[in-house]
């Protein structure tokens, strides 16, 4: 299935590219310079990445891309958090904490709570103070949807079981 998807992706890219080139050619015939023609053609086509994503949805493969993305974020998150929880001293006032409720982590990833510890990464206006762990937590939170809620239509089954709790305020739980 993966190789088929790769082949379809390559085919789609070729199709979009050839049609954009044709549009640019027509614009050149209308008197535009090659650069302007190319720019106009690309504008006419809009966001090709978005078009490709919509086509993938039509194929029914969009969930695979989403699952891979979820998995990548989760693996990176695990890898960067092996060093333990960030120091509370590095937190800034006015931030709010993203805490991982270890009791709510899925049983499908045994030991995940050990990797994360009682992790509490600090954020300032949505930007991580602890860049590495915080950024990935933020991404994971984005993937999972609104913190503290379960999103029924995203990611794989295991990812759906994840739960993140956000504790507003400057003081993190000790």
């Amino acid at each position, binding site marked *: 299935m993966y190789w088929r998807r790769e082949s379809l992706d390559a*085919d*789609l890219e*070729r*199709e*979009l590219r*050839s*049609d954009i080139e*044709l*549009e640019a050619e027509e614009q050149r015939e209308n008197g535009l310079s090659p650069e302007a023609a190319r720019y106009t053609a690309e504008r*006419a*086509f*809009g*966001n090709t990445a*978005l*078009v490709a994503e*919509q*086509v993938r*949805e*039509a*194929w*029914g493969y969009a969930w695979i891309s989403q699952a891979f993305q979820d998995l990548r974020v989760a693996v990176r998150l695990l890898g960067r958090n092996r060093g333990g929880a960030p120091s509370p001293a590095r937190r800034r006032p006015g931030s709010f904490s993203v805490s991982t409720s270890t009791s709510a982590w899925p049983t499908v990833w045994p030991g995940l709570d050990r990797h994360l510890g009682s992790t509490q990464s600090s954020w300032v206006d949505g930007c991580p103070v602890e860049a590495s762990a915080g950024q990935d937590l933020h991404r994971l939170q984005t993937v999972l949807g609104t913190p503290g809620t379960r999103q029924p239509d995203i990611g794989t089954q295991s990812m759906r079981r994840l739960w993140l709790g956000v504790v507003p305020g400057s003081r993190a739980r000790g």
Partner: protein
Amino acid sequence: MLIEPSDRIQLLQGTLDMLILRTLLFGPAHGHQIAKHVQHTTEDLLQIEHGSLYPALHRLERKGWIAGRWQPAAKGLTREFKYYRLTAAGKKQLAREESNWKRMAEAIARVMRPVKEG
């Protein structure tokens, strides 16, 4: 007459598939040709967005109503485009959609221009 983008009308849900299938009744065409054909035929009133066209083409291909194949634009040319052609199942689907469209248009016309009694 040049149609301003704001004057263009939105396609009704489901009519894009019918327009694509109808266009392909004339013969195989690639995405760009299909979009241009609809635009020219409607004198610029309808302009198919590429964000709608390509997903529709691939959805129709997946349903087996059209079939895509890479081939040169003309004999002797090496440059290839993905040409779509209507399949037998696509012709049947087009007939169904045309029939539904006529019924829908008649129903709307009855509401918009009711027959005067007496």
